[in-house]
């Protein structure tokens, strides 16, 4: 019974969870929010089977799977309990992400009113108590957040925020906040001035022991930045870390808005989805694409089987398994 699980962002206010036993089947489906749900995310399994969801109905919720309350006949059927509802936001909550596990059980949400909220469950055994630890104002309607997954002591906790604010004044849409040990607050560390179009998704690559961070941004194209911390000794201590920021790749293969980006476990392959379907780009470990930055083969089938265009699979391509 090897289980991998995927939570599916459901049609308005209903969520299904699927469980893989070689094949996928739905193990639980329940009503969650009164508005449509934007995102779901899993907590690290160290904290149990925990999900967080956020919705247009201005709330975010934390769910935990309960086994054992069902009787023997229903064994294997899982049962999800809402542990808490986070109601601080006055507007739609657009994204929710658990912090990397070394920080404990923490959760960040961002909302359309431009606030990033960071919650912490002080007692990991009690998921119904969450305290609002930080509120970061981004001044722009937020659409996505990403924690820096690095657990190295050399890197302090960091969170990147993207905005899909479509107002015409060209402002930088990606901001990076860093936790300052001295002030115990999150302070803005960087702003990516070159990204001025609405940002729909943002993702730090798994750090995997690299000396720099890789950030993928989904806007009207896919962009990949590296952020290399300038050595602490060189900067005045106490202030926010300075970064050398380089754009290492920019893909416009979607030729349209890009909605989601996702890194593989090593941060070497990035998958993205846009209005034209789905495709993946293969990147070397340093974030540079395999064959130059203007890589044309992104949706080119010859690049490998992982580069399936969605169109093909909609028509029942053999390489992908279809589940409904």
């Amino acid at each position, binding site marked *: *019974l*090897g*289980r*991998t699980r*995927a939570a599916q962002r459901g*049609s*308005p206010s209903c969520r299904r969870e699927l469980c893989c036993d070689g094949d*996928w089947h739905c193990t639980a489906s329940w009503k969650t929010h009164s508005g*449509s749900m934007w*995102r779901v995310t899993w907590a690290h*399994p160290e904290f*149990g089977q925990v999900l967080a969801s956020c919705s*247009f*109905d*201005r709330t975010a919720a934390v769910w935990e*799977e309960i*086994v054992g309350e069902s009787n023997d006949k229903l064994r294997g059927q899982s049962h999800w309990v809402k542990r808490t509802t986070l109601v601080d936001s006055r507007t739609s909550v657009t994204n929710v992400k658990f912090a990397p596990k070394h920080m404990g059980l923490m959760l960040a949400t961002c909302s359309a009113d431009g606030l990033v909220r960071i919650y912490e469950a002080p007692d990991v055994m009690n998921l119904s108590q969450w305290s609002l630890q930080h509120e970061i104002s981004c001044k722009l309607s937020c659409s996505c957040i990403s924690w820096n997954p690095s*657990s*190295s*002591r*050399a890197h302090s906790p960091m969170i990147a925020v993207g905005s899909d604010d479509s107002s015409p004044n060209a402002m930088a849409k990606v901001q990076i906040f860093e936790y300052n040990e001295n002030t115990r607050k999150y302070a803005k560390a960087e702003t990516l001035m070159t990204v001025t179009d609405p940002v729909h998704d943002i993702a730090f690559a798994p750090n*995997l*022991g*690299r000396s720099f961070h890789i950030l993928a941004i989904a806007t009207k194209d896919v962009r990949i930045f590296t952020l290399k911390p300038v050595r602490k000794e060189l900067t005045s201590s106490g202030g926010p870390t300075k970064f050398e920021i380089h754009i290492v790749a920019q893909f416009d293969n979607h030729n*349209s*808005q890009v*909605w*989601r980006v*996702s890194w*593989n*476990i*090593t*941060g*070497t*392959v990035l*998958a*993205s*989805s*846009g*209005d034209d379907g*789905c495709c*993946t780009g*293969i990147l*070397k*470990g340093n974030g540079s694409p395999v064959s130059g930055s203007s890589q044309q083969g992104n949706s080119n089938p010859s*690049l490998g*089987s*992982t580069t399936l265009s*969605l*169109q*093909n*699979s*909609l*028509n029942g391509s053999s*390489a*992908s*398994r*279809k*589940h*409904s």
Partner: protein
Amino acid sequence: MSGTKPDILWAPHQVDRFVVCDSELSLYHVESTVNSELKAGSLRLSEDSAATLLSINSDTPYMKCVAWYLNYDPECLLAVGQANGRVVLTSLGQDHNSKFKDLIGKEFVPKHARQCNTLAWNPLDSNWLAAGLDKHRADFSVLIWDICSKYTPDIVPMEKVRLSAGETETTLLVTKPLYELGQNDACLSLCWLPRDQKLLLAGMHRNLAIFDLRNTSQKMFVNTKAVQGVTVDPYFHDRVASFYEGQVAIWDLRKFEKPVLTLTEQPKPLTKVAWCPTRTGLLATLIRDSNIIRLYDMQHTPTPIGDETEPTIIERSVQPCDNYIASFAWHPTSQNRMIVVTPNRTMSDFTVFERISLAWSPITSLMWACGRHLYECAEEENDNSLEKDIATKMRLRALSRYGLDTEQVWRNHILAGNEDPQLKSLWYTLHFMKQYTEDMDQKSPGNKGSLVYAGIKSIVKSSLGMVESSRHNWSGLDKQTDIQNLNEERILALQLCGWIKKGSDVDVGPFLNSLVQEGEWERAAAVALFNLDIRRAIQILNEGASSEKGDLNLNVVAMALSGYTDEKNSLWREMCSTLRLQLNNPYLCVMFAFLTSETGSYDGVLYENKVAVRDRVAFACKFLSDTQLNRYIEKLTNEMKEAGNLEGILLTGLTKDGVDLMESYVDRTGDVQTASYCMLQGSPLDVLKDERVQYWIENYRNLLDAWRFWHKRAEFDIHRSKLDPSSKPLAQVFVSCNFCGKSISYSCSTVPHQGRGFSQYGVSGSPTKSKVTSCPGCRKPLPRCALCLINMGTPVSSCPGGSKSDEKVDLSKDKKLAQFNNWFTWCHNCRHGGHAGHMLSWFRDHAECPVSACTCKCMQLDTTGNLVPAETVQP
């Protein structure tokens, strides 16, 4: 429908047909071209579909609007509204079903001729057709016809018909509509409301009106300019869209006074607005002279908690073609599929994609959700062009026990797949380092041992200014070359390079033999030459040429080599120094570079990047003076560090320099696996204390966990604690006595026993032979196992409780782990427990705790407890 602007319609039932209409009606058939080539005469619609023209109907001139009959049968029946207000039924089907034959050609004639603006079939009563007409004095503008009614030729004089229709055939004319509505007004758009078959929504001249056919005298209306293109959301029957100029208004019929929403105004007038029939709340709009279809995603019903929340709308646009779009049509059943037509009748078939959310699984399979489907995309086995990603590589290497061979260290590169020359070099380096450290320690237990792991750079530095050169004779040639006298350090360096073997012997013979055996003829020849043995070099080349896999050209090279002359201005020298650059093999190239070089300047050899670092370094150790050598090594080290080239570990050793080098390697490749195993080899040194190294190790362990390689991770931990005793985790669980509170393991650890590996985890109530059944502190008996009721500390019986035979087999199979069966285990929830072996077999069949009256479902509380490590299911 003016002649220049075609419209397009999908057949409501035959999903592969559509009609384009401008001055005539053309029926097309759509085919998939995924597996077949484009047929002659068919039009390409998209990458994988094409259309074939089936038939053209030009019977009905002056077409203004077209509507497809909604019933399945007869197929391809269309109602055409004409400029004179007549509605004609026409067909594009080839087979004229006799039953419906009399329908085709039927005409519905209004009292006064004026333009017909719109047509709408009733979705429930399929025979009802509503037509919206322009205004004519006080006449009605909305006429509802029943297509099955008998024609009434007596009302309309025959000659009038002849005049207008210009036909001589028996025309079936109907002049008596079922209902007449909208007196003294004009009708611009119409749609039936699905709530009731007798409700009709009409966009009149200055208002939107709902007509109820049950009571035609009454109508509900609202004054607005947005009267064009009224259309009902197929998923939300109270929601209606209409437009005026560049603005779309969304109405809720339950709150009809004003639009619930108006969409942002477009700079140009709209031409079409349509709800997606396959997805809720998706509205497509098209404006004049544009190649963009704008989509509005209105998923959000107003929330009950929000008082005045406006639904948020996600606005998107798609650009299906480069030309202006004349019209578009949603496919009735295919998800989000649409076809567009341009004024010059090129068509394009495409799918509007949802926001696709996607996620990678740790084992490089990608999942994405699109529409109502979830797709999983797994990496295919036959990767032809794509180099395997490092994630896949590391996973396979973990399975092949890469890095765990601590005896024959060099073998690890074979475990890694024997494909990466850098890894090969790295593991050979580590192998030699280990070997010579042991060697040194045996000879003199001084501090020399750590020097070996410090790399050639440090070794060479330590011998500064002690070496003199001397002239050596070439064997088989009458020539002499300066060679550095080999002191201890240089010998050690050569040993690390692999040129000479252990022992005081400085003969490269064995190394040459092993190279020849592996078929590296060129390299062997070069090494022989660098050791001033030109005869051996030629002999090796000949051998290579005559071997099976060898290159016949090697004979030619051997010939050229044998012509060597020392004369400075000879033709041989001239030719060799120019032609050597054209040699493909770097080793052949450096051979001639060496022979043609001036005494003491060997840049052609030293800076040939394609030659393995170890050979270049060994060469440098032989021929360069101390200062030259130091400078060279320094330079090469920095080069390697910059590039993150693992061959450079030979120079840097496992020092801080080595960590720097490894850092740029990890930055480049993400291969923390190699980094972790490599740095663990240097355990007695300080490198393991480096934060970066600890971070790599931690990351690698996390990776193994994420892959569910828990056994591999445990193996790695054991391997790590062997090499780095400081990394042993502290005891996390203690078993202490209920009465005196003293740890039970306290006494156990004083008893010498075999389970050393277990005691590090602190749960060491395990030793069976010590037979501790009572607390060593206070002599109170230990608690009893809930199943066998025997005090803990006693060995477990092979078959507790049940008498199932398969259980017996199970336990005997696990003999290796028998000690584990004796461990304490207990539920953190109900605090009941006993022998681990007993508990495991109990919960194999039961959900509840074995203690009677306790309903705790101990095993299920831990959801991860049911998971199985991934290695066991791996092939």
